């Protein structure tokens, strides 16, 4: 079955699809991948210092995160999971809001971006993406919706119901599954008895594509193609991006309990998605060997600036948790706000 689903590849030895990514776009993807890696590493440090809460890094998954999101139009709807910080800022969420979110100060979706608040319950946002896509079509808008989720997410009932709905209604939606090998401590081989995840698309009459998730340009291209399919009324696409979670599930997780460090080898070094893309871009002649260090330095600066901005942001107003629960505050809730106001406690902690 796995043979029926060859990995879509653009860069490196096994390339089986021509590179159709413009040089400018490819470079932007690389820079954003560097930014994401830098952000993750910085946030892990902040977490260790107790300045942000539990954090799920996406180290190792930058190609999938950024490559895929880069192929979207700014108008497309995105329904991300908790790990998709890269996709968030790639899709227009102001960078420092992503940091604020990691600090427990609120939603990940400020700004103008068409991004839902990151979904915490696994796969429960997939039906939202289907509904958004159906709304776009009904309203005659030239937009698609994309949902991000993991390998573990394919086991939930909502995955099934969402893909089946998408198939039946031919919704212009993209299901982007990052198969990073693990759902916390459970390897994908114990998540499902099938050799691939993408083959599940066949249960729904949904187009399926399996892509090298560490090949940023391939990730870009499969999403671009899925968008066109969706906009051309060709229906939904499920993409399985094969990648690897290099780091812990979250900063609260200790992966040495369940996997040997050797398991990282095939996914790091020359196979690190950042290294792969950099080498390829240099080889293709769109980037010089001098550029990456500058890009890294710039990323560090941006991250530090954003972190500083976030750390210096004022404490949250305690009443803000009541804001926008309803369009209009009902009486009983207003009484509770008064009760809160009586609290002598200072504003909520950071």
């Amino acid at each position: 079955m796995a043979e029926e689903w060859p990995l879509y590849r653009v860069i490196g030895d096994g390339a089986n699809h021509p590179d159709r990514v413009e040089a400018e776009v490819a470079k932007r993807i690389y820079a954003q991948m560097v930014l994401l890696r830098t952000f993750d590493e910085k946030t892990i440090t902040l977490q260790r210092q107790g300045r942000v809460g539990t954090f799920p890094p996406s180290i190792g998954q930058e190609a999938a995160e950024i490559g895929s999101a880069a192929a979207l139009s700014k108008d497309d709807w995105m329904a991300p999971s908790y790990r998709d910080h890269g996709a968030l800022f790639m899709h227009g969420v102001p960078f420092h809001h992503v940091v604020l979110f990691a600090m427990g100060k609120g939603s990940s979706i400020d700004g103008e971006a068409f991004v839902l608040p990151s979904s915490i319950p696994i796969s429960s946002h997939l039906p939202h993406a289907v509904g958004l896509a159906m709304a776009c079509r009904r309203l005659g808008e030239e937009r698609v919706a994309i949902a991000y989720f993991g390998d573990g997410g394919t086991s939930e009932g909502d995955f099934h119901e969402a893909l089946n709905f998408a198939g039946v209604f031919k919704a212009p939606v993209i299901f982007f599954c990052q198969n990073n090998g693990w759902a916390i401590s459970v390897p994908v081989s114990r998540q499902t008895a099938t050799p691939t995840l993408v083959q599940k698309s066949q249960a729904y009459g949904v187009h399926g594509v399996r892509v090298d998730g560490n090949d940023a340009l391939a990730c870009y291209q499969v999403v671009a193609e899925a968008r066109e399919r969706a906009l051309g009324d060709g229906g939904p696409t499920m993409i399985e991006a094969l990648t690897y979670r290099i780091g812990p599930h979250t900063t609260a997780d200790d992966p040495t309990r369940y996997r040997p460090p050797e398991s990282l080898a095939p996914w790091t070094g020359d196979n690190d998605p950042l290294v792969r893309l950099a080498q390829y871009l240099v080889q293709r002649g769109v980037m010089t060997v001098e550029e990456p260090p500058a890009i890294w330095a710039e990323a560090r600066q941006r991250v530090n600036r954003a972190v500083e901005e976030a750390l210096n942001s004022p404490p949250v107003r305690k009443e803000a948790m009541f804001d926008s629960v309803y369009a209009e505050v009902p009486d009983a809730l207003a009484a509770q706000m008064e009760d809160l106001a009586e609290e002598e406690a200072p504003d909520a902690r950071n």
Partner: protein
Amino acid sequence: MPAINMATALNQALGQMMNTEPRLVILGEDVGQNGGVFRVTAGLWETYGAERVMDTPLAESAIVGSAIGMAIGGLRPVAEIQFMGFLYPALNQIFSHLGRLGQRSRGKFRVPLVVRIPYGGGIRAPEQHADSAEAPLVHTAGIKVVVPSTPYDAKGLLVAAIEDPDPVIFLEPIRLYRLGRAEVPADLYRVRIGPARLARTGSDVSLISWGAMTHLALQTAEAMAGDGVSVEVVDLRSLKPMDEAMIAESVRKTGRAVVVHEAPRTAGLGGEVVSVIQEHAFWWLKAPIRRVAAYDVPYPPYAWEDVYLPTPSRVMRAIRQVLQD
């Protein structure tokens, strides 16, 4: 004004709103060509087509979940769940998302979704087709929950629910769909979500109820009037938000209260009503408040239904008790 039953009143509300609100779409199991198992969407598919009246696959989580997406994406979806007991596969969408998206998006997104649910027992339905799970819904922050007990309120509340910027769970007492007719304005009108309805004025005891139990309450009140007992009946109508002021006012007047609901007693919504009374009318209370509810056992097969649900005699016993206390 023509006299119509509740099912027709609801059908009218939907049809007239479909007509005036082009963003309105209906989705659910068998809501299309079949017009819904209770015929509440009858005729809409014929008039507005399968693009706006969508028969979905048999999957409640996706019905509510996709409708959340549609609502955020600019539509005004009205989702139907076929029976209250079949909402349970969708509770993750309700508990995890429906009421949270406003706060979680800091007001950037609102979710103007109506979920219509035939609700409650009393018609000898097959097992698990008669649940009354309003309490868990009322416990859920960020949503509204309403339940009409007259054709007039049914139409007016449904119009208000569709126009509400926030999610509304709309419970439809199955037993009342075709129980009697009442005059209902032919035009569109709204019944505000929030205020309760004083269904009958009285001075000796306050009966507080909602849905089909309001009929039981009124019936009991009528019966006891013959014995010289004056019973006031408050039909909550909006369970969340709840009209605490009217409840308090009524009990301050009567000094005695009985709450009646179809759901099992323990941790049912009766406890909330008791607490509200306690907090707002304690000093006026002349006797402990009583709850009349279904017993704390699973809803039994219909041979038991008549004794499982509150009966007139249990409500009367409770009233006599609070009068004697």
